[in-house]
């Protein structure tokens, strides 16, 4: 996984709560056996109409949000299925940072494993940013090391993140390699069960 520390990007406000994984990527696109190429299917039913044309009632389709890489959303983002295709599609589309009041557990883990930065922030702050981001020119700068987000005017907001997650993201560690350093412990555990 790629390490992430600083990110600066255009903000896309998605003012909905309980955005579930079926909305993030519908099931008909889960049949691929690769990890890549899922961005084209992101928010498919919101972005495209039944004939595959772009819908103009979904803001992400608007040119002013082109190149967005920071997503603002309502609470419980990513609820539903365990499909890792959800973070794969968000990342592949270009979103590197998601800021929401809360995230569903499995989605949070899946995103983390792919080097995507999820930030929990209070609803009031998010709704302020949502308003500012409406016109498609709002940029946020995220510094993970310092746990700070800076807006266009230089206002700084801090955020919390578990130290362990932060360390992993900053270093881009491969989880399996880390765990395999504990191979002896695993063996010991297995042997104790056999005894």
């Amino acid at each position, binding site marked *: 996984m790629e390490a992430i520390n600083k990110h600066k990007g255009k903000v896309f406000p998605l003012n909905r709560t309980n955005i579930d994984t079926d909305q993030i990527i519908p099931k008909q696109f889960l049949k691929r056996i690769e990890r890549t190429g899922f961005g084209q299917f992101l928010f498919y039913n919101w972005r495209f109409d039944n004939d595959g044309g772009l819908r103009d009632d979904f803001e992400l389709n608007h040119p002013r949000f082109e190149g967005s890489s920071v997503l603002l959303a309502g609470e419980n983002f990513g609820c539903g299925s365990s499909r890792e295709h959800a973070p794969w599609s968000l990342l592949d589309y270009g979103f590197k940072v998601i800021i929401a009041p809360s995230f569903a557990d499995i989605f949070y*883990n899946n995103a983390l494993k792919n080097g995507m930065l999820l930030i929990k922030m209070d609803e009031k702050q998010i709704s302020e940013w949502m308003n500012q981001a409406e016109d498609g020119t709002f940029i946020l700068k995220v510094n993970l090391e310092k746990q700070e987000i800076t807006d266009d005017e230089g206002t700084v907001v801090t955020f919390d993140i578990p130290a362990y997650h932060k360390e992993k993201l900053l270093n881009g560690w491969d989880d399996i390699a880390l765990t395999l350093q504990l191979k002896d412990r695993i063996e010991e555990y297995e042997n104790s069960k056999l005894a």
Partner: protein
Amino acid sequence: MGKPKTIIEKIWEKHVVHQEEGKPDLLYIDQHLVHEVTSPQAFEGLRLSGRKVRRPDLTYATMDHNVPTKNRDNVKDEIARKQMETLRENCKEFGIKLADIFHPDQGIVHVIGPQLGLTQPGKTIVCGDSHTSTHGAFGALAFGIGTSEVEHVLATQTIWQERPKTLNVKVEGDLGPGVTAKDLILAIIAKFGVRFGTGYVMEYTGDAVHQLSMEGRMTICNMSIEAGARAGLISPDETTVEYLRGREYVPKGEAFEKAAKEWLALATDEGAEYDETVVINAAEVEPQVSWGTNPSMCVPIGGTTPSLDEVEHKEDVRRALEYMGLEEKQPITSIDIDHVFIGSCTNSRLSDLQKAAAIVDGKRVKYGVKAIVVPGSFSVKLEAEKLGIDKVFTDAGFEWRDSGCSMCLGMNDDIVPPGGRCASTSNRNFEGRQGNGARTHLVSPEMAAAAAIEGRFVDVRKFTAGVLN
């Protein structure tokens, strides 16, 4: 005697392989279940890094999500076929047992685990599927994981997990006649919302829970994820032990009696404390119907859709009603349906089918309604056929299919068309879940059966008593 403990703490402590200040615990996994959709990238990852599956003997695979439920010998969907073939090859290469599409043990992964006795009290069980919570019905700690975690478990047989907080979902009183486990869990989610379980493992307690059959308990635990909890469980009791006796993968003879004793000892101790408790009175629960686009948007059959003036998140409710093609304050019994789906890992076991069959017996599906029954596993299908249940359904005008996830998520051909309205025994009513533009109403098998006959939602209690208005 030490401090009284919950079953959650007991299972956790028995599985910690490694612990370090400020980090999650490394937990050992006793049973890993695998299916075709969330595993290909994990196996590919193993191959790329030259790793093996650490414990193929603790890993079991099946195909369920995109298998067709009819004409199985001719899978038309190329990409689905590729995914199934990939699983076949991966299982062969890495030495994993697979219940393939024509294998007698094939079925929805959360139906076959318990049926084979792979699911046992005290085990840690994971699967690349959020409804792995189902297995908690046996007093196992079971939760869904993503594909990177699948790869991690394949390679190490362990997983990093933060110690969860514990939540007691206490069900007081008894369920009324005609009210099912499905109604209970829907009512719980309607009352406390789709987030109240986030960060917790829930234990369902109370007489009403322990009076339920194992199949009813699975229905409840299955939907824990819909309340935000990764895992939900029920302490094992005699019902649990009796269900498991004689199943293929449980110990036999004396070893079984010994295991049974250990299982019963796992139950939460008297006086154990939880981080949080919520209480619901079972006697107040009525048959439920969901009206919206998440499982908490749910009311009793006698109720109506909400009024926008009375709700907190107006925009969400307005969007949900619009998607569902419903008005505010619309009576649930005024909603006509055109599809009925009886199936999914929530409600596709033998007793679910028996109860639905009892409702449709001797009646006809309403003209214009397409109704299908999809047994949860091949073996459920065979047992049902032995009892003649398939005949009851087909005589009434239902289609009787082969096992799989089917219309629960519509990854195969079983989809509800845009604007179609389905009474479904599954667990998610998200936008587009059963097909692009499809409208899903979550109900119990009995309520789905009654809706099939009437072509609209009816109170199954009045239906069986013959006093419909």
